[in-house]
Every structure is written in C-alpha cells, then in structure tokens.
C-alpha cells in the first residue's frame, strides 16, 4: 500500500513525535520499503492459525505469578522525584495542560 507524507505525519502525531519536514522526507521511503517487505506475510495462508500471544513457554504459562496482597516498601516521594526534570513541592511539574 502506498504511504504518503500525510500518512507518516499522522503516525508521528499519534506517536507524539514532532518530526521536522526533512526527517519526514527521509522516513517516507524508508518506512514504505520496510512495510512492503513485511507485507510478504500476506502470501502465507494463516486461516485458522491461532495468533501467538506474548513470549511465554508452556511452563511459563503454567507458572502462578500471583503473590500475597501485602504492603511492601516503596520508593518514597523524595526518591521518586529525584530524577524528574522539573520537580516542585513534592510533585512533577509540567507545562500548562489546558490552553
């Protein structure tokens, strides 16, 4: 399926990427080539084939991953905020949400 600059611009928007025009122009032919490569899968008849879900082995699927619902130690506010680019007053600070 042909992919246009508009398609890529729309995908960039969905992916929260602000692509400048020059990058957009490089990505269009590259993504077109990769998508047409992956479309070789269409040649395979997969009628009735169950899609694989995740990467678990049969033993992994059998593993009970539940644990007791008990309070455990957590990072705490100071540590959780330590790497934030803009923390203030015990919160993550962000630019205006409503404009």
């Amino acid at each position, binding site marked *: 399926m042909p992919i246009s600059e508009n*398609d*890529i611009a729309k*995908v*960039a928007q*969905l*992916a*929260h*990427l*602000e*692509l*400048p025009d020059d*990058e957009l122009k*490089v*990505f269009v032919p*590259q*993504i077109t*080539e*990769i*998508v047409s*490569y*992956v*479309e*070789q*899968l*269409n040649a*395979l008849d*997969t009628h009735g*084939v*169950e*899609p*694989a*879900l*995740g*990467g*678990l*082995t*049969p*033993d*992994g699927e*059998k*593993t*009970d*991953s539940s*644990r007791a619902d008990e309070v455990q130690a957590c*990072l705490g506010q100071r*540590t*959780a905020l*330590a*790497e*934030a*680019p*803009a923390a203030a007053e015990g919160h*993550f600070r*962000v*630019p*205006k*949400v409503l*404009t």
Partner: protein
Amino acid sequence: MFREPVEFSLNAAEKLNDTLNAFLQIDREGALRRADELEGSTRGSLSGLPVAIKDNICVKGLQTSCGSKILGAYHPPYNATVIERLYNAGAVIIGKTNCDEFAMGSSNENSAFGPVRNPWDTSKVPGGSSGGSAAAVASGIVPVALGSDTGGSVRQPASLCGVLGLKPTYGRNSRYGLVAFASSLDQVGIFARKAEDVAQVLSVIAGRDPHDATTADVPVPDYKKALSGDLKGARIGFPSALFGKGLDSEVAAAVKEVVEVYKELGVEIVEVELAHASYAIAVYYIIATAEASSNLARFDGVRYGFRAEDAAELRQMYRKTREEGFGPEVKRRIMLGTYVLSAGYYDAYYRKAQQVRTLIKNDFTTAFKQCDAIITPTAPTPAFALGEKVDDPLAMYLNDIYTVTANLAGIPGLSVPCGLSSGRLPIGFQLLGPYWSEPTLLKMASEYERVRPFTERPKINAEES
C-alpha cells in the same frame, strides 16, 4: 586478593576506551571499594569476578542511559534482579557498556554516544545492540558481561567479536530492571570467552523472580555440572535451506566444518526443515516495533531524563522532548510500530504477524522431535565496515536473519566462535535448542571448545595494552 583482577579490568577499560568506546561509565571507585569489601566475607561462586553491564540494565548508583539522549545520565533508584543476584554471588561491576539506543540496532552505530569499534579491526562494527559488552569481553577487559537479546543483540555481536553469547529461554532470567524494548522478546544474555563462565553466571542469575511475572517456575540446574560428559548419541539438526542465498561463503564453510567436528564427536547430524524461517524478519519487525512503540511511550520528559525547553503546553512538551531526545532509528521503529497498530491496520499486520509467529514456533516443535539442537550460522557475514549500512535500515535488519527466530519462539540460542575469515574477522555458529535446553547447548559448546579451542586474540586487547 580480589583487588588485582578488578584493577586489571579497570585499567584495561580506561586504557582501551579511547579506541573502542565500549564503556559509557567506568566505576573505578565503586568497583575497588566492592573488591575490598569482599575480602574476609563469605565466598560466593563469582567472588571478585569483574563484570561489565550493558547500559540498559539498572545498577543502583550508576547511570542507565540505554545509549539514548532521552535518558542521558539517569540514575535508577534500584538494581535489576540479575544485578542483585550477581552482587549476592560476589561479582564486581566495573562499568556500564555502550549499546545501540534502546537496544535497537545491529551495529552499535545507533548509540547517542558514538559507535563501539570492533577490537579485531577498529574500522569494523562490533555488532549490536550489545556491542560494548561484546567488545569488552573480546578484548579481554572483563571475562564476563551481560547484555540483552531481543532479536539477536547478544548472539550477533558475540559472533562478530569472537566470543560466546547466550540468549536463554524466555522466562529463564528476570527482566525486572532491564529497560523494556519488546517485552515478549527481550531476555538478559551472557557474554564470555569460555562456556564454563557462561554456565557459572547463568546458574547465578537464572530463576523465578516475583518482580517479573514472565519468569517461569522451572528449577535452575547447576549449569557447570552439565558441561561434563561426551556427546555420543546426541543429534544436531542441520537446516540446509538456511545455508543458501545471502550467506557469506567463508561463514558457510566454517559452520559446515563445525558440523564435521560434531560428527567426529559422535553426534548424529539430521536434516531439518524450518519452513517459515524466511518470514521471521518480517514477523519480528512488526511485533518488536509494535511493542516498542508502546514501551517507549513512557519517555515523555515528566518523571525522568531529558525534557525539551520552551514548550508552551503539555502535548507540545511531549512531542518536542521525544523529537529531540530519540535518535533516528528509535523514531523509525516507534513510527513503524504505531503504524502497524493503528486503526484499520491491526489485523493486516499485527494479528497476521502473531499468526506466523505460531507457525515459526510449530516449526521448531516439529524439528526438535528429530534432534536435540539445531546448528546455523549466527550472522550472515563477518563484521562489516562502520557506516556501510547506516542509510539502509532494511539491509541492517537482515543481519538478524538467523537469530530472530529464537526470540519469536522463546527458545534458547548460543553463539560460539569457530574461526577467522581471510580478513582475520571472527565467525560464529549458533546452536538453537528446545525450551530449557541450556545445559545441552552449553555442553555442545564446551565439547567443541575442547577439541577446537579458539585461541586467537584481537588486535586491541587488554593483555598487550
């Protein structure tokens, strides 16, 4: 007693880093302090062993950049489970190794901090994405390093650098503290120069972890014990269809020579078919990018890492941060993943890929009824030149043609060095096995090593520095 090997590794890492760019951080102070603390304490199975860690695995006190500007000098507040286990066994972490950004790449050229160079020839790539770990082990800086393998990111650089590289069964190792790229494919792997070292480290890091629900409740054997004994009566599958087009003739010849060695060791070679192997790259680049587009949504400039300046409102801040913080390959994969998951395309791409993934899994199930392991090349060519494939993403992706199937099927894979090309670049072969067959693969590697020891050393190496 423990100071000496640790100091040797630190000195070599510092000395060779100008040439190799294998390390993003070298922790001299912490490593020496740790070596001193080990004196007089109870000995663990890895006491004093210097280890290098790929920079997408969290080590408290050190940076975790994932080779990306968007994380930069991020310092995680906790240790990955595999790191806790290494520490408990007495290992000493000497630093964090360079890698392709968020483990996306096959040449290490996608690191925001410059490419790693291959210690055999510095004009060549070390492979990727765990290129720094592979180069650090190959050059003798450390005996062991950890990496991560989503589509071949441990095995392919191991092959290109002439060391062993193991991708364990999915669910063997905990992914807690490994920065997620594609969660259904990612697995922490091990680099070493001897099968015995891979076995010893695997015995330490493997096993169920309550912090990772995908770890399986399967007993962890003593992998080192599994190395002894001969291979008489063992069967290795040979998928002859994979030895055709696109495979370098020297690599093909080297791997066929390995088959002869195994015959001499009493192994029966059986022809096997992996009918859907040629579709693996297509399946992989749908599933891996789809999962990546979701996993990498968390890098938004709010909780950690880089934030772009001068954004007037929240959404613009997200977009500018991600545009400025991610490199081109990561953006390309996020875009591709978003595209294949977007409304109207999901069934055509993602569902279809998951169906073919089932067919690939079934191929292995059938093949392993006839054999204990399958042999293939690890990479189609020896190391290629820096810059050779950077403008052609698809050509770069095809490097993983022999390795991605193991991630899609969840089975273990081990790359083992088996000689040098005429250009003196390492060649590796790959052993693939059924779920939980790491003991078999390691024993096969160990027996090969015994009769065909790989004693060549790269030009850039710690012994001569």
